[in-house]
């Protein structure tokens, strides 16, 4: 007699069959439904130090986290170099050749576009980063072609993202030398949580330049109240005190 063990093995076959069926059903349903919202791996251009981070991002389903860390890296790369230069001049007692921070954020930053684009390659839903990158490239570093390239990439995976379209339009108007239209295009973004402070600052500056001091003051007040970036907050407060005199007059 073969024994209970053999009989048990035969009885167990329906279980195994049910397991395979259920696993197949789950896999098939997932295969049919799931469409990745992310760029394919071939589009991820890994900057000099970053392959390991990207691997972890994909392996642990932590794209957003690593996109955040890349964003922090971008901000560190962009940093506050110009303002630091102004402070160094002040400490040394000489301001010769110093722009006093007026040329806010200008500079070379050759890796800015690859770093900014990399954030969107990892997480195309990181709209703030896309707007920040495009805004910095277009309006601070004056590399509008790169800004447009970044926004075009963002629109590929977020085609309904109107904020990208507005900033594209603003860049177009900026190239055409129409600051009022630039401010008009940026205006709807100001209330959005994803609006980077640099675009707010640009809008305030354009309003001030056009003589709309009240509107500029409102935006500077918003920056001072909501931003955590010390440089922008300090600048906003400075501008507010200047504008206070003008609006009183």
């Amino acid at each position, binding site marked *: *007699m*073969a*024994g*209970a*063990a053999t009989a*048990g093995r035969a009885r167990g076959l329906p279980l195994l069959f049910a397991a395979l069926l259920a696993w197949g059903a789950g896999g098939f349903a997932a295969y049919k439904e799931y469409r990745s919202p992310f760029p394919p791996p071939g589009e991820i251009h890994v900057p000099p130090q970053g392959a390991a981070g990207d691997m972890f991002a994909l392996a642990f389903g932590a794209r957003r986290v690593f996109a955040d860390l890349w964003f922090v890296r971008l901000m560190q790369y962009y940093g506050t170099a110009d303002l630091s230069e102004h402070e160094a001049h002040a400490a040394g007692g000489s301001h010769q050749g110093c722009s006093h921070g007026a040329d806010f954020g200008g500079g070379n930053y050759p890796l800015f576009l690859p770093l900014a684009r990399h954030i969107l390659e990892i997480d195309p839903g990181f709209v703030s980063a896309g707007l920040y990158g495009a805004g910095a490239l277009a309006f601070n570093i004056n590399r509008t072609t790169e800004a447009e390239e970044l926004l075009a990439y963002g629109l590929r995976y977020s085609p309904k993202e109107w904020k990208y379209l507005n900033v594209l339009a603003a860049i177009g108007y900026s190239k055409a030398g129409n600051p009022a239209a630039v401010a008009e295009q940026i205006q709807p973004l100001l209330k959005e949580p994803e609006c980077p402070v640099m675009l707010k600052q640009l809008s305030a500056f354009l309003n001030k330049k056009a003589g709309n001091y009240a509107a500029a003051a409102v935006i500077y007040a918003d920056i001072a109240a909501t931003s955590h970036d010390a440089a922008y907050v300090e600048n906003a407060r400075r501008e507010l005190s200047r504008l206070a005199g003008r609006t009183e007059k």
Partner: protein
Amino acid sequence: MTASAVSFSGVEKIFRRPRLLGAICHTAVQDLSFDIPAGEITGLLGLNGAGKTTIMKLLTGLLFPTAGSVRIFGLPPSGQAAKAKVGFLPELPYFPPQIKPGAALAYYGRLSGLSGKELALAAAAALERTGLEPHADKCIAEFSKGMLQRLGLAQALLHKPDLLVLDEPVSGLDPLAIHDIRRLLAGLNAEGRTIFLSSHSISDVEKLCGRVLIMVRGRLAKIVARAEWEAAPGGLESIFVEAVK
């Protein structure tokens, strides 16, 4: 004729350990046939590796026979009906140290199908029966070896089984604890429960059992009734030594 509580018929158990090429086979028990009458205390003696624990596990459905059949009150041991009639005490039972004995018994009582008031009463009765009531508020970590063994017995008694299968119930206990356990088992048997216990201690088996099975290298060498060993000059020990030589 007394009904059989346990019936082994031509039972063989071979353990296979797969290797890269082929497998290593070890025959734990072979050609094993015996009956344990209901209501008796039957002992199982043998040297280490004789197959005693294998038999215990075949009885409780933890192992499946390679050949032959095992029956518990006429039922297959791996079935739920048979298991409801069996209370098992393995050698050196383990309980989570940080809980109290009542909590451990409550868990095993639920697994035996008890609940609510019935469970509470059964747990209290088991603690009292095994002399653990004074220690009910202690954590199991504070229990001595004898107390742990009693707790093991208590969990086996929860669902009032008809058959108690005890693997080395007095292993490592002091003489007083052994005496208490023996008295407890005699009391349980007096209530009509069948007890099947394995042991290394010939003297304990002699004092408690009405029959003894002697296992030698996986085979049943001898079945000895009380009358036989009481009549033998050297008692059960001499019969055992003769059987295993």
